[in-house]
């Protein structure tokens, strides 16, 4: 075991984290809106020095045959090699894919977007919403930052005009029908300490983490366990409650 691991685990036994935070404490969260001129909506989120940009682009396309009167949501994440010495060029790896899919499920399953309102002509034309997540600096807990950036970008998205033939990206007026605000909270287990918002060093030493997306009514919309260890039922229950609590705090930002 590496020295740093041993050190962080010893600290954890005393209920202390490497950077002095309490277990239930997030790093400082900063949110900037509509930073990207050409995107229909965008947001930059910093959690500590982790930094993520999410951009929303919209286009008109054909609906899926099984949902002829609903818009389409596509979520993609790129781990740019800019953001970490460990990221490489190439197609998204399993971590980028998992992140995008967890963010996508949080938004989709919570019914955050009223998809029926994105239908233009049933069975023929609907709005497609592309959420692209771009990591600028990887300092741990990318998933919460990405989810928060995605939802914030959606919140500030304006739909372009559409005349039945062409999308007019110069004129965007109507807001996207966003009806819920799902928030994603990740809790890691280090030794016997549960810590929200693990930073990069904590991610290296954690044995397991649980990511829980909740809505403003306290409902749970998406869960993802990750990491090479298991969790007891009591631990899961505890993390659920913590996720709802922290989710409510973040939703107010």
């Amino acid at each position: 075991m590496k020295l740093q691991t041993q050190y962080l685990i010893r600290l954890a036994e005393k209920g202390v984290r490497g950077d002095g935070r309490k277990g239930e404490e997030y790093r400082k969260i900063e949110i900037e809106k509509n930073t990207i001129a050409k995107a229909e909506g965008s947001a930059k989120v910093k959690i500590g020095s982790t930094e993520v940009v999410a951009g929303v682009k919209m286009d008109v396309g054909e609906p899926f045959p099984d949902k002829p009167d609903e818009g389409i949501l596509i979520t993609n994440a790129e781990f740019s090699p800019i953001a970490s010495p460990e990221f490489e060029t190439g197609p998204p790896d399993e971590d980028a894919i998992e992140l995008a899919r967890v963010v996508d499920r949080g938004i989709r399953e919570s019914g955050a977007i009223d998809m029926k309102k994105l239908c233009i002509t049933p069975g023929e034309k609907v709005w497609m919403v592309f959420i692209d997540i771009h990591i600028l600096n990887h300092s741990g807990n990318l998933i919460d930052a990405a989810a928060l950036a995605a939802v914030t970008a959606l919140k500030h998205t304006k739909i372009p005009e559409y005349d039945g033939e062409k999308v007019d990206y110069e004129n965007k007026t109507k807001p996207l029908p966003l009806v819920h605000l799902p928030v994603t909270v990740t809790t890691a287990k280090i030794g016997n300490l549960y810590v929200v918002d693990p930073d990069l060093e904590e991610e290296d030493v954690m044995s397991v983490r649980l990511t829980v997306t909740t809505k403003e009514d306290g409902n749970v919309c998406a869960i993802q366990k990750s990491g090479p260890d298991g969790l007891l039922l009591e631990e899961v229950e505890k993390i659920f409650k913590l996720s709802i609590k922290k989710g409510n705090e973040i939703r107010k930002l």
Partner: protein
Amino acid sequence: MKRIDGRKEDELRPIVMKAGVIEQADGSAFVKFGNTSAIAAVYGPRSLHPKHLQIPDKALLRTVYSMAPFSTTERVKPGPSRRSIEISKVTRYALEPAVFLEEFPKTGIEVYIDIIEADAGTRTAGINAASIALADAGIPMRDLVAAVAVGKINNNYIVDLCGKEEEQTLCDMPVAYMPRTKQITLLQMDGDITLDDATKLIKLAIKKCEEIYEIQKQALKKRWMG
């Protein structure tokens, strides 16, 4: 409530489990829940190349989940998809707590899971099969990993969803569980449910995993005893 296929709410589909089905593999298993069939094969521990992948103090566990093109109603395009890449990852984490990887430093243990028939619950079927296949390969394990998906239709908690139920359920929650250590090693959920629902569903899944676990042990016993 009568379920679409006549099952009771907490009734599993007919289950078949068989260890040792692929001669070429070091360990293997076939698992069938209703019309969902998974085959898992284990190769290893074996030497790992390229070298930079080797871990000094334990084996590298690799899992590849994939669906046969003819396994579903709409033909699946061969090759990895975003979905299969994510499932491969969570499957690895579902199995890893069960395996004494530290006994085989620098080696690789590969677990391949092929879904031959898909009628919901493919990842949990795959985990059940993989777990038996690892034991069949003689790899030392803390416990077997049993897995099942649970959900909620109307006000009913149901287990081992079939494909038609998966379309109707308010949530889909696959769970993997190691009965001996009581650890949950896979936990995912899509849906929109209360905290209370979530907790009850996990408890239900654990109960059913304990049943599945007995069938897994039977399959291994049959293999070893002849």
